[in-house]
Each structure stands twice: as structure tokens, then as C-alpha cells.
């Protein structure tokens, strides 16, 4: 430091003036002064949630993500946190090289005057709160240009953006693991090894249809669909990667005696076929729909209405009863927006009906009941508990 530093003698003189007994003090003293950049406001404090400190010390990254207009979030490898400024009424000074009494006692050579420079100070810090990753945008980006199969003329003339994992990491406010997990949930796949794509729904159904027809003609058990034969039989119709992708999307892969098989997901297949039927009209007569639906699914599969949670809604108040498509992933991502939209679709909901449409809003350890208490008002209707909006919906 260019300025004259305090000397031992000056320190002792101050102690004397203050009437403090040096014998009651540890021999070392820190002379605190403000460093050259202390006022510049270049430093700020980030309060770490449990686990984040250990991650930093292990050398792993934390990233702040958010475009202009988005509320910033902080992401570790597998979690996402909202960031908020917290004010204290006190002044916080942050000081490098400042030792605790234990550290001083552990070092016998410390009977020194330690000149410590305050690196910065603040009356506030960033606070973190674990939040749901903001993944709706991920699906939206990939739906800009769904993959329609090799026969569609695309790629060369395509003006749409294609997204690599790195692109998605820079655009989506979520951790890498949450993004990769969601890509799996929405059955995205990598085409050309680099770009994440989702399949256009009718192409996906075409692929599924190839597989289910083959299962039927080969009389395979739904639990033991051989990959090799599928590729052999269908490889002339569709790219091998797509055949394997559809098997992975609608089945569970396993190996038996060196061969790869798939255990098909009955519920997921029935659900997809229901979506295919329902998307053709605003609503359907329920009993007619159920009949057509059962006839449309592969031999050996049984359709059930509970397979359609979060996909379709039954209107029991209409005569005859009807059913219509309502996909939870098409609804707003934020809590209030979601509830507003649900209550504008239907004024009163039973807990059973609304649960599939709000389940994904639950934070860590939060229940659907807690959400309903917060965002809805309950009443009784014909002896059944129903929920409606807390505020008038326009």
C-alpha cells in the first residue's frame, strides 16, 4: 500500500486510549482499510442455498440465465433458482485474508499487524429460491420446426433455427440436467447427430402405426418386441434411427440373452391414439369416442379414461357427456396464469379433474391441496367439493 500503514506502536497506542488490556487480547491485529476498488461496486454477494457451496468448491459451474425481459435465474448442474435482491439494514463489508480467532491461534507466527484491505461493501445481496425450471420455451422452440420425416423437403431450404444442446443451454432458463430430462420427456431426438428435434405428430403416429401393425402381424407379445426384426422389416419404409426412436419413445428397452427388446407402454400408446382422434374436432360424444378409441388401439390393449389425464377433459354436465382435447403443456407456465386459464375454460372444478392440470406447478414438497388453497376458492356443489376462481374471470 502506498499510504503509510499503521504500525504496531500506533495500534498499541489506540488500545491504550481505548482502555483495552492487551493481555486480554490475542496478539495479532487486523488493520482494516478500504481497498482501491472498494467503492467501485464491482463486487456483489450471492447467498448460496445448501449444496451450491459444495458445488463451487468442487469446481463446478453456476450460471445466470435470462434474456432481456426475463427474470434472471441461477442454474447449477441440475437445479434452477429464482434470484431476488434482499436488503439488509446493516453494512456488509467483505474482506480477503481476514482470519478467525481459531486460524490465528493455529498459526504461532501470527503476532503481527495484518493489513487487510476491504474489497467491497454492500447493503444488499442476491437471494436464491429454488424454482421450477422454465421449460415451456423449450417445447415452443422445438415446435417451430417439427421433423416430418426424410421425405419432406426441408433442411436445405429451411429458414427455421435448429437448436443444439449448447443453443438450448443459452436460451432456456433451466439447468442442463433439467433441460436434458425434459428433452427425454417430450421424446425429442437428435437428427444429424447435433440438432434436437421433436417429431411432427402425424409422422410420429405413422411410425407408431408401422410398429403396432408389425407387432400384430408377427403376433409378438407387447412385452417383447425385438429391435432387430423391427429394423429389418421396417428399415425400407423409414430411417432406422426413427424406428428405434419410436420404440424408445413408446417402450422400455431391455436386453435378454444378448438381444434388444422393448416392453411397450400400453398407456402411452392408447393416449397417443386418443390424441390423434380428439384433435380432429372441438369435442366428441363421450361414448362414441370411447368405442372408436378402443377399436383403434392395438390388439390386446385396453383403453381407460384415466390414461388421458392432462390430455383431455370430460364434460359430465352436458347431455350427452362429451370429451375434448385439453393439453396441459398448452397452458400457461406460471401459477396465476395457469389457474386463470383453467377457470376460464370451466368455472368450477373438482379436485380430481383439476389435479392433472396443476400437478406440474407444485414446488418441491408442495401439494396440490396447498396450491388450491392459495389460488382457488372452494364450495360445495351437489354434495361435491368444487373449486372456482378467487377473482372474477373476464
Amino acid at each position: 500500500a502506498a499510504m503509510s500503514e499503521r504500525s504496531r506502536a500506533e495500534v498499541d497506542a489506540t488500545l491504550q486510549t481505548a482502555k483495552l488490556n492487551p493481555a486480554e487480547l490475542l496478539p495479532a491485529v487486523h488493520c482494516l482499510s478500504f481497498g482501491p476498488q472498494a467503492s467501485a461496486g464491482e463486487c456483489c454477494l450471492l447467498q448460496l442455498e445448501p449444496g451450491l457451496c459444495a458445488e463451487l468448491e468442487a469446481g463446478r459451474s453456476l450460471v445466470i440465465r435470462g434474456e432481456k425481459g426475463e427474470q434472471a435465474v441461477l442454474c447449477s448442474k441440475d437445479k434452477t433458482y429464482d434470484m431476488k435482491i434482499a436488503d439488509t439494514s446493516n453494512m456488509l463489508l467483505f474482506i480477503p485474508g481476514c482470519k478467525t480467532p481459531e486460524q490465528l491461534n493455529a498459526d504461532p507466527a501470527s503476532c503481527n499487524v495484518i493489513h487487510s484491505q476491504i474489497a467491497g461493501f454492500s447493503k444488499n445481496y442476491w437471494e436464491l429460491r429454488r424454482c421450477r425450471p422454465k421449460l415451456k420455451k423449450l417445447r415452443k422452440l422445438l415446435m417451430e420446426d417439427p421433423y416430418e420425416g426424410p421425405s419432406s423437403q426441408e433442411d436445405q431450404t429451411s429458414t427455421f433455427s435448429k437448436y443444439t444442446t449448447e443453443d438450448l443451454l443459452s436460451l432456456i432458463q433451466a439447468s442442463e440436467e433439467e433441460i436434458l430430462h425434459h428433452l427425454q420427456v417430450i421424446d425429442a431426438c437428435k437428427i444429424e447427430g447435433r440438432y434436437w428435434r421433436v417429431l411432427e405428430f402425424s409422422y410420429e403416429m405413422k411410425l407408431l402405426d408401422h410398429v403396432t401393425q408389425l407387432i400384430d402381424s408377427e403376433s409378438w407379445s407387447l412385452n417383447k418386441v425385438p429391435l432387430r426384426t423391427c429394423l429389418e422389416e421396417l428399415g425400407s419404409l423409414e430411417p432406422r434411427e426413427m424406428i428405434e426412436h419410436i420404440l424408445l419413445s413408446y417402450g422400455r428397452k431391455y436386453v435378454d440373452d444378448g438381444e434388444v427388446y422393448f416392453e411397450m407402454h400400453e398407456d402411452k400408446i392408447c393416449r397417443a391414439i386418443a390424441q390423434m382422434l380428439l384433435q380432429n374436432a372441438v369435442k366428441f360424444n363421450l361414448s362414441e369416442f370411447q368405442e372408436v378409441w378402443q377399436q383403434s388401439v392395438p390388439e390386446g390393449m385396453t383403453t381407460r379414461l384415466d390414461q388421458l389425464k392432462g390430455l383431455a377433459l370430460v364434460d359430465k354436465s352436458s347431455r350427452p357427456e362429451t370429451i375434448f382435447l385439453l393439453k396441459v403443456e398448452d397452458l400457461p407456465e406460471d401459477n396465476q396464469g395457469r389457474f386463470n386459464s383453467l377457470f376460464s375454460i370451466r368455472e368450477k372444478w373438482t379436485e380430481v379433474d383439476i389435479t392433472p392440470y396443476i400437478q406440474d406447478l407444485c414446488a418441491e414438497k408442495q401439494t396440490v391441496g396447498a396450491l388450491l388453497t392459495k389460488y382457488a376458492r372452494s364450495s360445495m356443489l351437489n354434495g361435491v367439493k368444487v373449486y372456482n376462481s378467487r377473482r372474477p374471470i373476464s
Partner: protein
Amino acid sequence: MTPCLSYSGGAGALAQWMLVELQGEVEPRQSGSLAGSLLGDLHYTCEGTPVLIVGHHILYGKVVQLEKPFAVLVKQAGGPQPSPGEPQGHYTVTALIKTKLLFKTRPKPIITHMPKKV
């Protein structure tokens, strides 16, 4: 597209800094910036109680192990200018803070009649 980025973990252990929490404001004695000016002397009693002599005040505090440690983020030069309240900009994590010295007690004024000559 990527407005801001935080630390990439890597070579070298993170430095451990300390937090000192004081009531009130810190103001320079003379006009001008704080840079370079002295704050005071920090002692510890033999029992480990921190004692801070600031100007004409003695402050007694305590050592607190933070339940939630802090990371110190340092803004990188050359990043986009952030608006107030937005953490946009490039930061690196420079240090961790796991301990603070909390001075909450009312400062005891030091009454001097004669400045001690050194």
C-alpha cells in the same frame, strides 16, 4: 443471447473471505472516496470475541458461522451495462464467505482527553 454468465469452476481453490457486518453507514472522513482510508483495528479477545475500534468507538461482536455461505461475484470489465437490479453482465466467483463478524452492539465511545503521542 447470453447476457450473463457466472463462474466456471476450475483451477485453484476458491479464496475464503470474511464478512464484517456493521450497523449504520460507512462514510469517508474527508470528502472523497473511501478508497485507501482506514476503517479501524480488529482485535479478538482471548475468548475469541471480535473487538473493532473504529474512530472513537469500540464495537464488540461475535463470530458467526453462516448457515448459508455467500459467494462473492466480481463483475467482469467489458460486459454489457446492466440496469439496476438486474444481474446481467459477466461475473466470476472470486471467493466464498462462510464466516461473518457481526457487530450489533451499540458502539462504546472512546473518550479521550489527550491524544497519545507516538
